[in-house]
């Protein structure tokens, strides 16, 4: 195994006097799927913006080897481009037109949207749009996939289906993945490692690993066990008799 594609060393980030992230050190190894969960407003999106290089940390070092692509919560597709054109964005380095067309076709097959290549995003359902975004991020030579609550705008059943899709697609196109989510079940069902963040300023509260290979069922004992553990970490586990909505 070579150097890890994503490394954070003592990373902090503040906005003025508001301290959002405090002294985070995370190392993501090649091909790993890391999920980051935490209470809402804890700075998960700030963390992703640092990981993607869109923002810089106030202090600390982020080392990234390879190209990263982000899948956004929603509306990350260019509405003026067709499905094909959006996916082809990730293939601009491919000089040969025919090669590019073939790779777009392959991606369409992968996300099961053959026949929609000339549709525009506003003509698709929310789940289809997120699949196209996934395809756009996976097309071509990206190494790291950053997922910013990619299914949070979808209904529950579609979300379950999208998790299966992600598992299937990653089997065909392995990537190093960082998923930021407040959906604990999603994290436990997909990730090899779950990092639980504290409230702002966010620090790492705990980490857990899951060994069961994907695709996993949401009722798999290890998944259920992980969900229980995360809930306890976030103080929303029902056995504790305590409910917090933070």
């Amino acid at each position, binding site marked *: 195994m070579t150097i890890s594609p994503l490394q954070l060393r003592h990373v902090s980030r503040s906005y003025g006097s508001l301290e959002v992230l405090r002294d985070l050190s995370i190392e993501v190894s090649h091909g790993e799927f890391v999920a980051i969960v935490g209470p809402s407003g804890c700075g998960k999106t700030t963390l992703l913006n640092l990981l993607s290089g869109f923002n810089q940390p106030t202090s600390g070092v982020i080392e990234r080897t390879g190209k990263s692509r982000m899948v956004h919560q929603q509306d990350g597709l260019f*509405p003026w481009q067709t499905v094909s054109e959006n996916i082809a964005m990730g293939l601009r380095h491919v000089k040969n037109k025919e090669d590019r067309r073939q790779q777009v076709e392959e991606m369409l097959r992968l996300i099961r949207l053959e026949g929609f290549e000339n549709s525009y995003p506003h003509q698709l359902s929310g789940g289809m749009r997120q699949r196209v975004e996934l395809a756009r991020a996976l097309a071509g030579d990206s190494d790291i996939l950053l997922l910013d609550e990619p299914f949070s705008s979808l209904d529950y059943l579609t979300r379950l289906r999208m998790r299966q899709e992600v598992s299937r697609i990653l089997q065909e196109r392995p990537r190093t993945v960082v998923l930021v989510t407040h959906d604990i079940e999603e994290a436990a069902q997909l990730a090899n490692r779950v990092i639980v963040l504290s409230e702002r300023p966010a620090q790492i509260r705990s980490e857990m690993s899951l060994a069961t290979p994907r695709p996993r069922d949401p009722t798999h004992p290890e998944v259920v066990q992980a969900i229980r553990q995360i809930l306890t970490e976030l103080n929303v586990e029902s056995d504790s008799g305590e409910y917090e909505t933070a």
Partner: protein
Amino acid sequence: MRKSGFIRSVALPLAVVCAMILVWTLVWRSGVFHPSAFPAPLDVVRGFGEEARSGRLFTDLITSLFRVSCGFGLAVLTGIPTGLWMGQKEMARTAFLPIVNFFRNLSPLAWIPFAILWFGVGDASPIFLIFLSAFFPVVLSTMAASANVPTIYSRVAKDFGMSDSEKLMRVTLPAIMPQVVTTLRVTAGVCWLVVVAAEMIAGRDGLGFAVMDARNGLRTDILVVEMIVIGLVGVGIDRGLQQLTKIPSIRWGYEK
């Protein structure tokens, strides 16, 4: 179902037009207005034939359309880049927004005396006035649109390693197109109003001058002919620009 809808969409407006002509005829017959001040519908039809045969209607129409095209085209070509610049650079916005707003609210017709003094009567004066009518609205709308392009598109552009010029051409411009097209439609309408006024005062030809000429000759029938043509062409211009909203890469902005 579709067919009957089409018939209805033609028949109903046509009925309204017929009713208007009927009212017009009745008012003419009643003698409320002196015949020299109120032409009969048939006189207008004859006047139309006269104008069409002499070819003057056609040349006036071409003259006016040419002036609008020049002034409007010039305003779009300079206004969109200026608006983009002001939308992206806060300094530029702070510096120029008040003055742009000032000229935006100053009626272009107030410029007519200066236009005549500087450019005389001919093509240049109306073109200058039309340019003024279109430039400032286009700048303001482009500026507002480009300042409000969602930041998520910038992130995507960065993720995919776009250069600044690539981002401008492939992200910012397409993102603002729906709003720009809406402004173009409104502004073209204003330009069509302004060209008539400009030619009435500072023209030797064009539809506006023809209106003034008909007035001077007490030819109220010709006056109505010109009015009908001006109105119809205005509708035609808007319909033409409306086609832009049907371009697939622009249409998304008008959905939902």
